[in-house]
């Protein structure tokens, strides 16, 4: 039980930490949210490449895989596996293969949402 609590606390702290860094960037710099998302994904690829992100995933699980840096991690991991299996061609196929689930889910959900929902006014 105590172990579970510590696990979740780590997930919370690391996941929340990624969000705080982004919030500081939004509040203190002129970086727009769209640019932050792009930077986070690219940063995730780089951090995985230099070997920092894997230990973070082991430590914090979904606390590291849920933020968009985790999306970058999935891209990098995907491309590594594909390169090992198929050589240089894998550099072209691995990234999107590794993230296919999330992207396809977003696309499908977007389409279904467009079918089902209507825009609502903001208050």
């Amino acid at each position, binding site marked *: 039980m105590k172990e579970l609590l510590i696990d979740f606390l780590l997930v919370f702290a690391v996941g929340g930490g990624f969000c705080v860094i982004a919030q500081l960037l939004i509040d203190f710099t002129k970086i727009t949210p769209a640019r932050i998302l792009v930077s986070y994904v690219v940063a995730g690829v780089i951090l995985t490449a230099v070997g920092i992100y894997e230990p973070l995933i082991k430590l914090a699980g979904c606390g590291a895989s849920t933020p968009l840096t985790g999306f970058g991690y999935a891209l990098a991991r995907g491309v590594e596996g594909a390169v090992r299996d198929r050589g240089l061609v894998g550099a072209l196929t691995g990234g999107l293969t590794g993230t296919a689930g999330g992207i396809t889910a977003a696309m499908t959900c977007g389409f279904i949402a467009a079918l089902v929902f209507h825009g*609502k*006014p903001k*208050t």
Partner: protein
Amino acid sequence: MAGGSQLLRIQNPPSIVSSAAVVGRKEFEGPLGADFDLHADDDKFGMDTWEKAESEMQRLAFGLMLKKGVIKETDVDAIFAGDLLNQCTGSSFGLLDFNIPYFGLYGACSTMAESMMLAALMVGNGVFQRAAAVCSSHFCSAERQFRFPIEYGGQRTPTSQWTVTGAGAMLLAKDGNGPYVTEVMPGISVQKGVKDANNMGAAMAPAAVDTLKRYFSCSGAVPEDFDAILTGDLGQIGHEITAEMLYAVGFNIKKMYNDCGLMIYSAKTQDVHAGGSGCGCSGSIMCGPVMKRFRNGTYNNILFIGTGALMSPGSVQQGMPIAGIAHLVRISSTLPACGGGGEGVSP
């Protein structure tokens, strides 16, 4: 006309004979809610897109204005109308039903002042007997065009303003018992390097300062002559800057100065950050609450300065600074005494 200063004293000041304001729910729930003629609870006005809803607001406002003034459609010689949508479709579709000559305007959020000014000049100079000034903005259609999809989850910066869902329509006629549009002063675009599309107030304030400075310098009027000096949608930041910059050049307007963007929402309870914005902001305030105050005698003499930020999403993305414009309209419940400032002609 005072040479070079662009102050236009209208020879035969036209009378504002009727007006109507239509707003959305948030505006209705604001401190001036009771002074608007009509509102829709869902901001859709029975339409299926936000753009159609905006057009419908103009149609309703114009129709209501005719009805309130007991004026026939055929008695209106021209409409001057504008909005924020690309190619001014809000106005062109909204006023399609009326068989009246139509001039589409783009003055960004200054459209109410621009259309009033042109209508007043045309009527005052005998070109038309009656001309209408109409404008609108809708939070959702503006958000879609200028910012993000409605359902997008983003945080607004403290300097950002909330586009007003509202439309205003006003009829100016040669004959009437006032209030009269006695003077107008077209704005000059002023650009002071502001690039932040989330800080329109700061981008537009220098234009308002420029217009007011020119006006006080050449009209002979002083701020104390007016019951109110109202800018269109400078919001909290633009309001502060305008008052301060004018004070620095010797015009203290702080006592009677207010901004439609600050009047339309409650800053405490409605979470609109720096205030309201959009053509519909000054449009609905002028055609609703302000005209009501003229009727009940609270206002006898005011200056209305419609303010606009001249930009597009593309220009902002390309790093172009935002220029501001401010058109001034003077409204009085009485006709100016002979001469006014030495140049006007009494009727």
